[in-house]
Structure formats: C-alpha cells, structure tokens
C-alpha cells in the first residue's frame, strides 16, 4: 500500500469508528433524549412520577377554564387524557386544539404545571388556505 492509500484507510476507519460509537451512544441514551412524555407514556409508567417531568399533547377542545392567571385544561394524545392546572402567563400560540408541552408533576392524577410551552407544527400557509382546508375537512 502506498502512503496515500494508507491514510485513506485511516480516515475511513476514523469515520466508521465514530459512527459506530455515535450509534451505540445514542441507543444508550435514547430514553434520556426524549423531551417530553405523551399521556400514554405516563399511563404505561414510563414517566418519573413523583418527580418533575414534561408532558406533551394536544389541548382538548372546550376544556380550557380560566380565572385571571389560573388556568385548567386537559391534554390528550387521543388515547389517554390528563387534567392540567397552571397559574401564569401562557404563550401566544396556546389555544384549544394546539400542541403543548407542560413541565410539572403528577399529583393525584392531575398535572400541576410550572411551565406551559406551545408546540407548533411544520406547516406554513396563509390563513385563507387554512380556512379552506378546515372547511374541506368538515
């Protein structure tokens, strides 16, 4: 082998080695890399109940109840649903049917939230198009 071919093999080995290490590293930490748990994950016992964790899902339609800064609503993944209690300012995107990620802990089957974040999807369109799509679905 020439010196150049030798170096080529070394670089290829470096790339292969790092990819393998990365693959196993990510597999090992897979659970820790989840930013939130869905209500179904919580029911399945995957979430650390008793500690603070993040719950993600959709705000159930007609479930939002407000009193000044106090808000109650329900979060669902269309399989399981949890009631949420929160006191504080909500992000602009927060509304019924919107995706949310809530930090807090589960006490007596109610999620006591310390932070509510809104999650929006990857779709971008003008309001008229969104309305038209909505009408077409109904």
């Amino acid at each position, binding site marked *: 082998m020439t010196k150049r071919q030798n170096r080529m093999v070394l670089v290829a080995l470096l790339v292969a080695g790092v990819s393998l290490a990365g693959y196993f590293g990510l597999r090992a930490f897979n659970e820790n*890399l989840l*930013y939130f748990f869905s209500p179904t994950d919580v029911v399945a016992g995957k979430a650390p109940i008793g500690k603070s964790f993040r719950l993600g899902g959709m705000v159930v339609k007609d479930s939002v109840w407000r009193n000044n800064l106090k808000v109650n609503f329900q979060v669902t993944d269309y399989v399981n649903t949890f009631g949420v209690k929160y006191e504080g300012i909500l992000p602009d995107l927060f509304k019924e049917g919107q995706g949310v990620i809530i930090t807090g802990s589960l006490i007596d089957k109610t999620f006591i939230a310390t932070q509510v974040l*809104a999650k*929006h999807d990857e779709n971008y369109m*003008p309001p008229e*198009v*969104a309305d038209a799509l909505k009408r077409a679905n109904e």
Partner: protein
Amino acid sequence: MWKWIQAFASPQNFYQISEKIIPWFLSPFIILTLLGLYWGLMVAPIDYQQGESYRIMFIHVPAAWMSMLVYLIMAIASGIGLIWQIKLANVVAKVSAPIGAAFTFLALITGAVWGKPMWGAWWVWDARLTSELILLFLYLAYMALNNAFDNPKTAAKASSVLAIIGLVNLPIIHYSVQWWNTLHQGVSLGINKVAIQDSDMLFALLLMATAFKFLYATLILLRARDEILFREQNTRWVKAVIMGDEK
C-alpha cells in the same frame, strides 16, 4: 487529470483565479438577498398560526442549513487535506470554520428570538436545539485547536481529525426531530415533503437560501486569499503581488 487538479489547486493559481470570480458570487448574493427580503417581508402572506412572526424563518432556516453545509464542506476538505495533502484543502477547511460558526450562531439567536413569542421560551434543552449548540462548540473547538499550533501542517492534521469526528453530529441534527420528541417542529422542506403551502413563502425562502450560499462562496474566497498570502509570504510570487500593489 491529476496534474490538472494539482495545477489548479496550487496557491498561486487559486489566488489569481479567485480574484476574477469573486464578483460573480458577490453580486448574486446582493441581488438575491434584496429580492428575498422584499419577497419575504412584503409579498409573502402571513401564516395561519404564527402571524407575522414566522417571517424570521427567512433568515433562520437558511442560516441553519448553512451551519450544516459549511461543516460538511469543512470535514470533506479536512479529509482531502489529510489524504492527498493538498494545501488548498487545508486552507478551505480552516477559513470555513469561523464562517460556519457565524451561521450557527445566527441560527441559534434567530431561533431564540422566534421561540420566545411562539413557544414561550428562549431556550429549551430538546434534541434539535442541543445538537445545534454542540455544532457551534465543534466549530469553536476546531478554531481553538487549529490556532494552538505554530506549524500550519501540524495544525491542519490535528484539527482535521477533530472536524471528521464531529461529522457524526450532522445526521443527529437533521434527524433529531424525527428520532425523538422535541419542542422544535418537524421538517418543513425535504426531498419528498413540502409543508410550506404557499408559493410566495416558498419562493422567498429559496431565494434567501440561495443568497446565503453565494455569501459563503464570497466569504470563503476572500478569506482563503488572505490565508494564502500569509502562508506563502516567503515565496517570490507573493512578494511580486505585494510589490505590484504598492506601485
């Protein structure tokens, strides 16, 4: 073929050719940016969810794409530098790092400014945001390592290995929104997916994305010329260039 490549990649030849092609990258950048900003800020309609705020996408998305593309180019140039020991490849890798770091920083900052009103937080430690921050640290580490050696050959060797190791982060950034639950939304624009359902929005985004590529090409040529003059300062042709400039 091999000889031809080597001749083109010789520092002197590159210095002379690059001077002529810089305007061909700089002027498209200026025209496309002005057109892209006009299209994005004036022509494109508001978004059904995010209203006017989504318009920061026209800077954020091209910057984020560039942060990864520049790293890919840097790593490939590093590999070429290691294997074939072409001086120009080492120069391209070295001068790409600060440009890539700047694009990464821009993506992170515009993302934070966007996240506060939309999500309700400047920063969260989800997989997408964290892996992009690691990309910034990789660029900074590359620059620090490259500057730690006085001999440019040793510097190129050490930092090239780091650049290639960091390559593993690129698929993680790209697929982070698919592999794990994240606050960051999924892919809007992919090979077989277009979730931007308005032609003016899409057009503005593509204009800006193309403009950023011309910006990178311009910056890399300008910086590479400086780096070459510095590295070849003891050669006859550089002295001739300097003397010629003083006339």
